[in-house]
């Protein structure tokens, strides 16, 4: 059996590990755009802050692949998938045949249309190293800009705050996580940012960067903002260029059923790139979090090895902004909910949103209401309606 895995992140590498455990003689190949063995992208924030050493970020040593007889091809990407003849052409022009193919190629940050030295994106350990280099060059007189209103913006906020650097934050909409938060919850996040000393500009789409060779500022409808470094986090996009003519059904991700199988036989998808049929939430969606990616990697390996069971998980993600604990569980898309119930208030400093669809709870956002997490996670698993839940309020 020849297993070919496109993507060496947590989904792809976990799949390889599980496949090896179930089949000692299979050929397993990982095509990895990165030059580094597996590491935790979630740990990059801790690494940037100096909480953990660079070597502690790695989850596998470079020798792990060989020790497990896994062919690891770092620094190459897939360029074309031929599902009829069952091979993938990669960027060094080799054609890799497969019996079963896993697409676990993740996403890349959506880039700005403009670029200058001093602009930072944060996805890989190379990005983190680049950011540290910029920070050391800019010194303590640096003025930080952040553009975006999602998880990556939070990582920059936490880092720059830890370094006691002045922060200008701008984003296009009027609130953080605009697809998930109700206005009052958005106000709570904004209040925490402003109280934390951030110069906040909402409805401020980035129009241009300023600087000759090095960044000195950026322009929005709110004016010109002088910064020496700009952290950008305006969403991510999958690279579908190699899949375009392959006949694999694509949506906002690579579409799969509940078994993580695509519409093409022997082609599977897992992790951030997969738009999978979620049997708990009752719709097809992309969930981008560590827990989901790792669990799908483990699960899809079992399915590829012949154990055809549905993937089932209520996954979550959480992040902290200046002491405001933000937890997301399940399906938190406002547009996909019939009802979104709000518990708590701006005044109390804690808000929970409960997302309901077809008279059952499908998701929750908790801002400084950590203890609601268990209740909501259980309600999603048990497919309970909101009316059955009892929340504690002051």
């Amino acid at each position, binding site marked *: 059996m020849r297993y070919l895995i496109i993507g060496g992140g947590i989904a792809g590498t976990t799949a390889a590990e599980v496949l090896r455990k179930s089949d000692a003689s299979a050929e397993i190949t990982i095509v990895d755009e990165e030059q580094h063995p597996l590491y935790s992208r979630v*740990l990059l924030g*801790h690494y940037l802050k100096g909480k953990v050493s660079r070597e502690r970020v790695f989850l596998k040593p470079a020798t792990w692949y060989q020790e497990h007889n896994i062919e690891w091809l770092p620094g190459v990407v897939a360029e074309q998938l031929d599902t009829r003849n069952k091979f993938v052409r990669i960027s060094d022009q080799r054609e890799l045949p497969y019996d079963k193919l896993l697409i676990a190629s993740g996403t890349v940050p959506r880039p700005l249309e403009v670029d200058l030295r001093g602009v930072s994106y944060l996805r890989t350990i190379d990005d983190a190293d680049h950011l540290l280099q910029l920070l050391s060059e800019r010194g303590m007189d640096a003025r930080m800009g952040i553009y975006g209103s999602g998880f990556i913006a939070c990582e920059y906020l936490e880092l720059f705050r830890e370094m006691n650097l002045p922060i200008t934050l701008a984003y296009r909409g009027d609130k953080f996580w605009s697809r998930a938060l109700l206005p009052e919850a958005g106000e709570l996040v904004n209040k925490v940012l402003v109280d934390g000393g951030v110069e906040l500009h909402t409805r401020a789409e980035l129009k241009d960067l300023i600087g000759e060779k090095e960044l000195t500022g950026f322009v929005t409808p709110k004016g010109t903002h002088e910064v020496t470094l700009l952290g950008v986090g305006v969403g991510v996009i999958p690279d579908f260029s190699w899949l375009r003519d392959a006949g694999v059904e694509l949506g906002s991700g690579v579409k799969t059923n509940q078994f993580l199988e695509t519409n093409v036989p022997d082609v599977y998808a897992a992790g951030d790139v997969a738009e999978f049929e979620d049997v708990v939430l009752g719709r097809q969606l992309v969930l981008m979090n560590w*827990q989901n990616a*790792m669990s799908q990697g483990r699960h899809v390996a079992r399915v590829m090895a012949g154990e055809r069971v549905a993937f089932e*998980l209520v996954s979550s993600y*959480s*992040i902290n902004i200046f002491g405001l604990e933000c937890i997301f569980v399940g399906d938190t898309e406002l547009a996909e909910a019939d009802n979104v119930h709000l518990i708590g208030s701006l005044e109390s400093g804690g808000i929970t949103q409960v997302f309901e669809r077809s008279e059952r709870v499908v998701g929750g956002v908790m801002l400084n209401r950590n*203890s609601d*997490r268990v209740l909501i996670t259980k309600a999603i698993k048990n497919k309970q309606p909101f009316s059955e839940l009892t929340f504690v309020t002051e």
Partner: protein
Amino acid sequence: MPKIRVQVDPDLCIGAASCVTIAPETFQMNEENKAWVLDHGTEPGGSTYERWLEVTEDEMENIILGAQSCPTLAIFIFDEAGTQLFPDM
């Protein structure tokens, strides 16, 4: 039954709760969104980030799986002799 010491570093824990999903008998999120360590679902001696557990081989394997799933490697597991079982040194 093997005896292991399970320890959560609250400074590294970000509340992703992967450990709770995999090993709910051993980990539970607290008010601060950090993971307490439980002994088979209970908390003898009160809430803590560290405790000795007597577990079966299967339980131990599952607890290690929970630790492996932690995106910030905030969970440490030691055997009776004090050797770190996870993360690999």
